[in-house]
């Protein structure tokens, strides 16, 4: 029994090491009879930095939510860290961090309380200290005891970033994380993403600033109406090509 468990653990470990961070196969998501994602396939190796580009409504946010296991795909397969994603994927979720479209924080609790709460849910050791360090990192050390509802949108966004980093995720999904940030904070977030990537985390960044995305990422996927229109190394792309592919009509003003 114990030996069996040990072998299974060992096989799991090898599968884990060999497998890519995310394996997406023919993924489809239909919401209320509307096809949001259709036939999306890609492999994302460990420690990759992927930019997800596309127009509004192209399916970037939905793809990120599917990858975050927040919602289930309607068709196709999804593996994270070599494991198929199922309903009870709590262990997988522990390795994923997400910066969402909304700030995903409790507005009546203070920034520090929010971070500490999630730190404890993720069983982060010395959650309070880590929360304080991260608040310092996002430049809000002196606002930690303020309720989130009293923070400006940009400040709350910085707390949201700190929340996503509390448990040092292996896979960071960022949905328009630069929304509402002032220039210094945006620069700091850029640095932070690069640093996380350098430390071996896999990052998927959905962003509308094409130049910024191509500068930060190694690889870019352009979504158009829920399908992968383009999947290439970021270095070989320029903003014009991305725009053309995202619009699908040459981007000409009629």
């Amino acid at each position, binding site marked *: 029994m114990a030996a069996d468990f040990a072998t299974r653990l060992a096989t799991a470990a090898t599968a884990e090491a060999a497998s890519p961070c995310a394996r997406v196969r023919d993924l489809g998501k239909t919401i*209320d*009879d*509307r096809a949001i994602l259709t036939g999306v396939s890609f492999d994302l190796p460990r420690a990759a930095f992927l930019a997800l580009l596309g127009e509004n409504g192209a399916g970037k946010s939905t793809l990120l939510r599917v990858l975050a296991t927040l919602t289930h795909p309607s068709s196709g397969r999804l593996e994270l860290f070599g494991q198929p994603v199922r309903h009870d994927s709590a262990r997988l979720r522990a390795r994923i961090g997400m910066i969402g479209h909304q700030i995903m924080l409790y507005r009546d609790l203070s920034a520090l309380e929010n971070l500490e709460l999630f730190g404890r849910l993720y069983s982060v050791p010395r959650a309070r200290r880590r929360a304080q360090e991260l608040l310092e990192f996002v430049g809000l050390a002196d606002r930690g005891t303020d309720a989130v509802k009293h923070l400006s949108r940009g400040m709350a966004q910085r707390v949201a970033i700190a929340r996503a980093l509390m448990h040092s995720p292996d896979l960071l999904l960022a949905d328009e994380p630069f929304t509402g940030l002032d220039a210094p904070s945006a620069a700091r977030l850029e640095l932070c993403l690069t640093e996380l990537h350098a430390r071996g985390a896999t990052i998927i960044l959905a962003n509308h600033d094409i130049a910024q995305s191509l500068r930060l990422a190694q690889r870019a996927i352009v979504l158009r*109406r829920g*399908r992968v*229109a383009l999947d290439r190394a970021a270095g070989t792309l320029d903003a014009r090509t991305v725009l053309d*592919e995202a619009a699908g009509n040459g981007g000409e003003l009629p």
Partner: protein
Amino acid sequence: MGTARRAFGPVYWTITIALLATGLWMSAFYATTESTMGPIQKIFYFHLPVAINTFIACFVVFVASAGYMMQRTAMWDDLAEAAARVAVLLCSVVLLTGMIWGRNAWGHWWTWSPRLTFSLVLWLLYVVYLMVRPSIESSQRRALVSAVYGIVAFLDVPLVYLSVKLLPDIHPSSIRLAPPMQHTLIVWFVAITMLSAGLIVARFRLGRLTRAGARAGAQDAPAHPRLVPLGKHA
């Protein structure tokens, strides 16, 4: 094959209507008139089969809801809705015939007798099912909430039944039936069951068609992306 399937519907409905007519004739002329209640007792041949079919329809809602929970396909949701509609219809008939019976047996249109109360609660449970559906905008969310409710409501039914039994009872629990009365009841039962099943299927088909129409509408405009040959950029 095709013609056989097309002929099935009319044949089915003809048999159903013929059975209903036979049932009517039998309750009027074949079954003996009961001594204490008089002719009003004949409503019973109709009342009991409808009541039983109400449960069957509720059970279909339950099964379809569970099916939706497992497979998440719109087909199950359509079936659950169709069955719930028929359940409410049948339950309304049970309530009305029950009230007519009560008026003649005890002189009041309404008494809080356990079974009348039970029918009323059952009716409320499934009317709510139908009323809540349109107020949920997202069709997936609507199907999910309905499915949860469809399951929970059915689990609730035995509890309702047990709790109304705490009320003092005056409902006739068992009636001794002469053989002609039994035959009449059986004919009615078959007729009503066929009617209910036919209604559920008809309503289910209508729901499928409406959904297919809505889906075609939703997909028509922008959601048909041109296929991009992926190799082009490689």
